[in-house]
């Protein structure tokens, strides 16, 4: 996960104005930049193509969905997005996503810490394997996890002996979402831990801090923004996830039916308005999460930038 949207917007004026020896007043430097950007060709072509392609394939189709819901009356919309079956699906989707993101935050922190700080055989393999959920198609992950956690599966059988049912229950949804979200936390924390100067911990230890104190007082505050970013990324991915979940969930209405599946069910019943209404609720949540992620990434950069 290298593309951090807000970073991309970063002030590039410094580079562009870099050739000027004297710091020009703001208005003047702007006019210099204006003239300078014409040095390189292709601005109109590349920006024009970018905006056209983006509008045609992403913005206009998304806009169409919004306009479609705008044609519904307000009471119809509320009724469509708050029926008991829909509410039950929100509870499952958001609850399981929250639980999975929390587990990933905890174990992701441990995994990132171990991969950055320790040397052990198979470390590179483990590091490469972390990205598996990004690379493995969700349908493959779905049937593999279902087979594993089914009552007669490798992991499902011993768990069933303990009286724990995973596959075809909400617990299965949680397992699938944990798998999907794993790389997000590890890959956002790793770079921050790598740049963490050892002197900080050494200083704390020299001043008499216990190992646990060093972790809670020194390391955790530095890692927190990245941890929250990873948590939010994993959560955002989990609420929209479909492929890996539907095999293991069992898909019982009111019990183990996730919101994305409900959208598909409504579509298959030709209830386009109902499907779109739920989709708009999900889009609104995604949009707020995207805003939150942007802000968290800004915070991460300021926090770890202060160390350098």
């Amino acid at each position, binding site marked *: 996960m290298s593309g951090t949207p807000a970073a991309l917007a970063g002030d590039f004026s410094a*580079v*562009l104005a870099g050739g000027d020896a004297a710091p020009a007043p703001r208005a003047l430097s702007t006019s210099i930049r204006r003239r300078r950007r014409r040095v390189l060709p292709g601005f109109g072509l590349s920006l024009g193509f970018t905006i056209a392609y983006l509008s045609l394939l992403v913005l206009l189709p998304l806009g169409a969905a919004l306009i479609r819901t705008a044609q519904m009356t307000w009471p119809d919309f509320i009724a469509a997005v708050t029926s008991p079956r829909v509410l039950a699906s929100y509870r499952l989707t958001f609850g399981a996503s929250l639980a999975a993101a929390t587990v990933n935050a905890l174990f992701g922190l441990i995994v990132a810490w171990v991969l950055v700080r320790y040397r052990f055989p198979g470390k590179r393999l483990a590091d490469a394997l972390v990205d598996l959920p990004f*690379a493995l198609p969700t349908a*493959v992950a779905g049937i593999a996890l279902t087979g594993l956690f089914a009552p007669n599966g*490798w992991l499902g059988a011993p768990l069933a002996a303990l009286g724990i049912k995973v596959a075809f229950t909400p617990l299965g949804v949680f397992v699938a979402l944990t798998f999907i979200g794993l790389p997000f936390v590890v890959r956002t924390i790793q770079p921050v831990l790598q740049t963490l100067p050892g002197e900080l911990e050494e200083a704390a230890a020299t001043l008499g801090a216990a190992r646990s104190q060093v972790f809670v007082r020194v390391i955790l505050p530095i890692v927190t923004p990245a941890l929250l970013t990873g948590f939010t990324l994993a959560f955002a991915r989990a609420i929209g996830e*479909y492929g890996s979940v539907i095999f293991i969930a069992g898909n019982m209405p009111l019990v183990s039916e996730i919101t*994305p599946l409900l959208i598909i069910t409504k579509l298959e019943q030709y209830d*386009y308005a109902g499907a779109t209404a739920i989709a708009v609720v999900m889009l609104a949540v995604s949009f707020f999460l995207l805003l939150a992620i942007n802000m968290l990434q800004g915070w991460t950069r300021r926090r770890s930038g202060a160390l350098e």
Partner: protein
Amino acid sequence: MLLIGVALGFLTLFLFVPLAFVFHQALRKGVDVYLTAISDPDALSAVRMTLLAAAIAVPLNLVFGVAAAWAIAKFNFPGKSVLTTLIDLPFSVSPVIAGLIFVLLFGLQGWFGPWLREHDLKVIFAVPGIVLATIFVTFPFVARELIPLMQAQGTEQEEAATVLGASGWKTFWRVTLPNIKWGLLYGVILCNARAMGEFGAVAVVSGHIRGETNTMPLHIEILYNEYQFAAAFAVASLLALLALVTLALKFAVERRQRRVDDQDGRRSR
């Protein structure tokens, strides 16, 4: 020591075991069953469909990614941060919703539905719909790899080439492209993996017509729901292999990139 154990235990349980399980299940009934499953006509047609969708979506998003990165990394303009956020938008949209929006546009009850029907054109439940959905979900991959890379590299080299009289295209091919080739390859690898493996968005628009509009992930679903587990896992193992190749290439490219960075670092020192 304890932490290493916890970390490796977690990774083994959640990543290695499911991967091993796919191959175990695929080969459990013997190599013959495996070969029959993956050479079945419907399976082969699903492979062709998957390759076709990726072959259209990946190059288009590659061209888009390069154009977007050129505009955003090399120039200043108002609204730049909004544009970069919008490019990332498809990542935060559920794949199911990505499929839905194309049904709303091109489905029978959609905006262009009646017009398409008059002209006897099919988008939904046909190949164009699958391609559109695939483009949507893989939209940001190349752009988001290239933008930070090209921003870090700045504009000095391109400006020098231009001042020395190189044309825009020549500057791009001779100066920019060699600088970004590893990042570009990296983005393409990730884009391709997602394009070939996409399930949710394609499931909504494909209509699951066997031998016609089934991609590999959809074919796996059908086999699985028909309790043909060995066959489902056989096709799944092909996609799992693709995932392993993707990870290996990613690993190699990252190492290569790091070596290039180290050399650059030494030179500048």
